[in-house]
């Protein structure tokens, strides 16, 4: 197992390095110029050259990539081209909003997806089960923006029918007022959670429906469990690794979803920051931010792979 973890971590690092190269290359292809943004539309070519030289944008691409990578190895993500603020500080600050938002979204998606997935598999041949499955199909297909808008219209303060929860912004005081801060994350997290949860629901449902026909689930019932107990207690663990890997895949789309809802709900998190930075062609900041986000997704993949080995003995080698 230790050997497997080491190998898997090595793969994670390799993934990060490849990502860094890819992100760097893609951003150089992007049209637009930070110097132009900083200098303004009226800047002379000489002025633009000056700005480029000041920020090292005139160096060769391999040199730029090299110095960025060297900085990363020391934990230095660089400085914003536009504001000059260290990127690490700004990301850390934005994470205080984005990480809880992503965590809450994941929690909602699991709370929606897993129990409803189980229920819709257990009652698959009833009208209710068919209805649940159709609703899930529909929810999985709607864009997160639209889900967010609907939630604002239904529940949002100032705009909604019920005016239950804040729908715009994050308290200036941040987490020093935990109640208010938390409340402002509920609707956006719910928007992501409903859509992602619907996808998880469908996977849990189909994994359990498959388990329904498995011989060992029948054996469990023949040994004294009720049919439902056999399905849930014996069928679900077998489907565990499959469900886990779907959750890992969903983590990537969850982070995209978080970026989207931050813009929609005017939350000053990583997503909103990224959107602004891309507009400003703040290349170093964008590439560092994207790398951090990709790193997060890769990390979730790593943890899920290890967890799925732990719960599934078939994936382990002899002696583990």
């Amino acid at each position, binding site marked *: 197992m230790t050997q497997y973890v080491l190998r898997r971590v090595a793969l994670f690092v390799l993934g990060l390095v490849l990502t860094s190269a890819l992100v760097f290359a893609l951003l150089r292809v992007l049209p637009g110029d930070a110097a132009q943004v900083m200098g303004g539309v009226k800047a002379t070519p000489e002025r633009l050259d000056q700005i480029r030289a000041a920020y090292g944008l005139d160096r060769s691409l391999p040199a730029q990539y090299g110095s960025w990578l060297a900085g990363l190895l020391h934990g230095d993500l660089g400085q914003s081209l536009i504001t000059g603020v260290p990127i690490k500080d700004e990301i850390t600050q934005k994470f205080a909003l984005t990480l809880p938002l992503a965590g809450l979204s994941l929690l909602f998606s699991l709370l929606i997806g897993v129990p409803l997935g189980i229920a819709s598999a257990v009652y698959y041949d009833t009208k209710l089960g068919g209805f649940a499955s159709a609703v899930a199909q529909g929810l999985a297909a709607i864009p997160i923006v639209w889900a967010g808008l609907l939630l604002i219209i239904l529940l949002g303060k100032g705009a909604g029918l019920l005016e239950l929860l804040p729908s715009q912004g994050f308290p200036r005081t941040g987490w020093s007022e935990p109640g208010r801060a938390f409340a402002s994350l509920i609707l956006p997290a719910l928007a992501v959670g409903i859509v992602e949860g619907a996808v998880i629901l469908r996977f849990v449902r189909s994994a359990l429906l498959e388990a329904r026909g498995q*011989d060992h689930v029948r054996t469990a019932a023949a040994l*004294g469990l*009720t049919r*439902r107990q056999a399905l849930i207690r014996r069928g679900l663990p077998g489907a565990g690794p499959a469900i886990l890997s779907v959750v890992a895949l969903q983590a990537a789309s969850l982070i995209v979803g978080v970026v989207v809802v931050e813009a929609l709900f005017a939350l000053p998190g990583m997503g909103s920051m990224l959107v602004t930075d891309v507009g400003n062609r703040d290349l170093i900041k964008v590439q560092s931010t994207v790398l951090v986000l990709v790193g997060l997704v890769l990390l979730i993949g790593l943890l899920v792979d290890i967890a799925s080995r732990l719960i599934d003995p078939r994936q382990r080698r002899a002696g583990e």
Partner: protein
Amino acid sequence: MSLEVNDLTIAFGDQVVVDHIGFEVPDGARVGIIGQSGSGKSLTTLAVLGLTPRSARVTGSIRWNGRELVGLADKVLAGIRGRTIGTVFQDPMTALDPVRTIGKQVTDALRNHYDLSKAELRERAIRALDQVKLEDPESFLGRYPHQLSGGQRQRIAIAQALIAGPRLILADEPTTALDVTVQAGVLQVFNELVTGLGSSLLFVTHDISLLPLVAEQALVMEAGRIVERGPVHQLIDRPQDPVTVGLIEAALATAWVDGPGEGERAPSGTGAEVRV
């Protein structure tokens, strides 16, 4: 405790797959059900357990120890399954849980029905594995099904079904998936255990040559009906129905392919002895 089946019918929509059958397994008796696949024999055993597919409609009567099982709530049936009625299923590759240890699943019936301490469960598990003649039974407790051979798995499936000392044992082709050489050993272990418990047995198979080893009486099923019944030796020596004759010929053909070479063909009508 006896099992009495009367007028049992199982249908999927308009399609009747078990058609008004009736039979009895008296206390301590051993009855075989023989038929080709699709004859309804496996569904009959599932109906006794209340485990037919949900789309199946089961009517008629199955009385176990005087109690009507047809229509009984699943919760009540679960209290019977594994405790007074034990079941050994066909395919040892898939019938065991792939993600739980042997030690756990072999004691499932005990844990479902009785409140035993961990130490007691462990002791019972070791004893059960020993009874199915697994060498060094303790070493199996922490292992998983995918680490074992087919014969070992089927012995575990037997230990699992019999651990709570059921009064009736349902066996659905328990040795069919095994090699012929392994089959004989597993069947012998199974026989000894059933004899030891003094339980009744309902043994389902398509292989008529196994019948003399496990049953005194047998029913021949075809397309959901019982076409012939009687003492096993009589069915084999003087088969009346063409279906029974066909099953004997099928057993002989297999014996001929699996068994001795050409020129050692077994005399017809004594298919039972060929494989033994």
